[in-house]
């Protein structure tokens, strides 16, 4: 069966510091991968998605970037965090190619102070 992992689970970072959140998927190949952000009490905002290694599409202009160095690894990064980057970050995967359900990881709660 497939599983998706995210770490760290929680993170407190000062403004201006760098960020690296990692997401890995097990039990599948060539997944579509996604990064979402969720502000408290709000819906999901798609940040990035990837259909393959090195292929990243950005949905909104922002202070963040994403990379996919391996088939089942998706990384969310920032060189300098802003207060507005605080939120709940969710990674998700879906089977390649079709209109299929996205499966979410447990999320990382980021607080920028």
């Amino acid at each position, binding site marked *: 069966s497939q599983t998706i992992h995210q770490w760290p689970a929680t993170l407190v970072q000062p403004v201006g510091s760098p960020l690296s959140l990692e997401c890995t998927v097990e039990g599948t190949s060539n997944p579509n991968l996604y990064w979402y952000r969720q502000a408290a*009490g*709000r819906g999901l905002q798609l940040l990035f998605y990837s259909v393959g290694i090195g292929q990243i599409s950005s949905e909104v202009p922002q202070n963040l970037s994403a990379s996919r160095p391996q088939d089942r690894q998706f990384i969310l990064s920032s060189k300098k965090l802003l207060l507005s980057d605080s939120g709940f970050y969710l990674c998700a995967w*879906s089977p390649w190619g079709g*209109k299929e*359900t*996205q*499966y979410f990881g447990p999320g990382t709660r980021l607080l920028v102070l």
Partner: protein
Amino acid sequence: GESVGLHLPTLSVQEGDNSIINCAYSNSASDYFIWYKQESGKGPQFIIDIRSNMDKRQGQRVTVLLNKTVKHLSLQIAATQPGDSAVYFCAENRETSYDKVIFGPGTSLSVIP
């Protein structure tokens, strides 16, 4: 557009009653719809899905209804239990140049014991 900036609507239901959560979608080209449940501090979990060639699909205690004429989706939960308390998101998959799931703003369901 995506409703990621809206505060969540809420629904309070007495334990044992049936719950109905509604969702409107905007793109008549959407042909795949999913309901997710998100408990506090966790990632969304898949509940049930439906394709546009159907108007009703049933799962365990849940039923999804699709009305393509008015672009409306609903999730019915039978005999609501305290464990059903969560935020519920509908999502649509649009026929664009890539597969991307668009999430609705979510509804917070509170079950009163």
